[in-house]
């Protein structure tokens, strides 16, 4: 066998080997990143079934020495989690539904309906994303309290408590987010104009074009906004805590805070409660992950 054909074969194999090495390196990196992402969740679940003795052991054990599943039932007895979960679900579903409807309409208008001041309005929407949540709490509280005709208020918003400690106060302030408007706008912008022109020629109304032609084509945006809104609403803590006073309107995250005390945290119960609170989000993500990833890729957001 001559050296020439061997060299030729080696050269031919080189790209294949290089490609395989690149893939191997890529998978190794992805494996490490995936592990880094999953370790906190695994740690959370393992901590949730540890005893206090296990938690205090040093060096710490990865696996519990005694698996104490009763931490879950004990955690549930710390606060009325059934009521809190229901409240969180009602608020998260309401926020998601309202945000999908309102933000998609706003995004469509900003993307496809020409009107004077459209760009300025869009910039104003973007600007609202820059305001830190904490700085909005007090003004938002005052607006909720001064809502006319609610909670014993007169037409000037005086005399009562407005939306404080009510479902209105829990749902309306978070019902529309500027990020969702931005995301929908980006998606509607990416759709070909021929579609709406064809629909217009066929005599379809503007609302029909929005609802029956364009919106069905932005399913990734719908999934992304739905997931992000649900997640944000489900995890919201500060506003529900501040706007409510009645225990029957408190949400899951407020319940979880009962495991955290200024002196010591009840770590095992906190982790058990957090594991239970995380399950709905994980399930939701499993159902929507394809659209979710597509949504972020299409919107150019990383």
């Amino acid at each position: 066998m001559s050296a020439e054909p061997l060299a030729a074969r080696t050269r031919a194999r080189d790209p294949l080997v290089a490609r395989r090495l690149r893939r191997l390196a890529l998978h190794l990196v992805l494996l490490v990143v995936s592990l880094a992402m999953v370790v906190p969740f695994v740690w959370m679940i393992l901590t949730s079934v540890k005893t206090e003795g296990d938690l205090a052991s040093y060096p710490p054990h990865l696996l519990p020495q005694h698996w104490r599943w009763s931490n879950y039932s004990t955690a549930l007895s710390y606060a009325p989690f059934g009521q809190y979960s229901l409240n969180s679900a009602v608020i998260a579903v309401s926020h998601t539904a309202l945000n999908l409807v309102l933000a998609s309409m706003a995004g469509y208008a900003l993307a496809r309906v020409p009107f004077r001041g459209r760009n300025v309005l869009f910039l104003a929407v973007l600007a609202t994303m820059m305001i830190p949540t904490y700085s909005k709490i007090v003004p938002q509280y005052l607006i909720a309290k001064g809502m006319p005709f609610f909670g014993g208020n007169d037409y000037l918003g005086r005399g009562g408590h407005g939306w404080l400690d009510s479902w209105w106060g829990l749902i309306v302030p978070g019902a529309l987010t500027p990020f969702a408007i931005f995301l929908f706008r980006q998606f509607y912008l990416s759709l070909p104009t021929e579609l709406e022109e064809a629909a217009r020629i066929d005599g379809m109304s503007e609302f029909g074009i929005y609802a029956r032609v364009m919106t069905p084509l932005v399913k990734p945006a719908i999934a992304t906004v739905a997931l992000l809104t649900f997640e944000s609403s489900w995890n919201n803590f500060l506003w529900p805590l501040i706007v409510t006073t009645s225990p029957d309107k408190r949400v899951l995250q407020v319940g979880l805070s009962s495991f955290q005390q200024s002196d010591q945290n009840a770590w095992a119960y906190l982790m058990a409660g957090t594991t239970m609170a995380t399950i709905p989000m994980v399930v939701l993500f499993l159902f929507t992950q394809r659209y979710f990833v597509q949504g972020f890729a299409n919107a150019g957001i990383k």
Partner: protein
Amino acid sequence: MPPPSSPLSRRRFLGLGAAAASGAALAACGGPAPGSSTSGGGSASLRMITPIFDRADGQKLLETLLAQFKKANPGVDVQPDYTSYGKLNEKLTTSIVGGQPYDVMLIGVGWIPPFAKKGVLGDLGTPAADLSRTYNPRVVQAGIWEGKTYARPIVLDTRLGIYRKDILSAAGITAPPKDLAELKDMAKQLTVRKGGTLQRAGVDILSNDLRQTFLPIMWAFGGDLFRDGKPAFDSPEAIDALQWMVDIVRTDKIEDYGFSSTSAVAAPLTQGRAAMAIGHNDLWRQFEEAKPELVKDDAVAGFTLAQARPAMFQGGTLATVAARSRYPQQARKLVEFLSSDQVAPQAAQQRGNIPAVLSAANSDYVRSDKLVGFAVQNLDHAFSEGGVPQWLEIRDQFKPALESALLGRTTPAKALQGLAEKAKAIMAKDS
């Protein structure tokens, strides 16, 4: 009669609210003392905010107690709003800004001067001397501002010296250190390193909040937080106190920075990785839950931090009445009830804290919790933080200053002098 008007502008409040959000300040508005209102006894619906009783068992206990209160005060309803200490400031700020302050507020030591100065709190009208028959006189002081009583204590918590008898005994030491100098010497002897790596700290000063560790040491050295309303935490005594802490970490290598922290799942003392500690009396609960054998074997006890004088840090939860309450008399009755012999011990036991009332000193609970019992016996040596209306903002400046000294970035003297300058600037801005 409409509620008294607020002397504090809304703009001022918003600014304070933003500070509260960063954990640096508080907000308030006010009016005259509740006694000036026309509202007398009779029916009322009181709103109360509480950072204690927040867990389900605590809520159940409070419901039972409030039922007793209602039985004694027919027609008075109480609507408790449960929150944690972590979010108490935001809840209070928004309620006051919104013009609907809670009638009864349970707040921490150190919050009284800021709230009283802003007129948020109403004068309870009980002289300190009268309260001293029910509570330790030093504890009563936390609720006094400019000679008026604005708060009555319910539960207390302390930071004190805690030691493992078994570890000291194994080293041939039979008694806890009598002063801070001896504490350091003992700690050096008890520190264990293997190959340069710290295995056991002679004393753990890092699991507790740094400020709450530094202050009792400073008081023990004879220092004060404020003198004549001016910062005194850069005095020679305070510098000695911080130098003592720096020596523990940097000079004598008794504990490495990062060996433990306030967020540690378990204290090194519990794990046997420390022989002594400056910590919260609540550590007893951790011993009971994680290392019950320590409790069973009587292996843990407290000691007072002493040098120029004995000292112990004392915090707690106090009951106050809003100056703008529509039902001042009923609110005061509720405050008296919550801080009474009947309620305070139960509240303390539910949280593993110290009952403020003297009558509980010999209760079964106090006797069974050795650290609580030790704290109760030594309340005469208790010091509380605060003292000026700007304290909540000033206190947040302590940690970075103390850390910079412990990390060797600056000297204790420079760290504390810089801290005092910041405090003076905060006070000047607010005056």
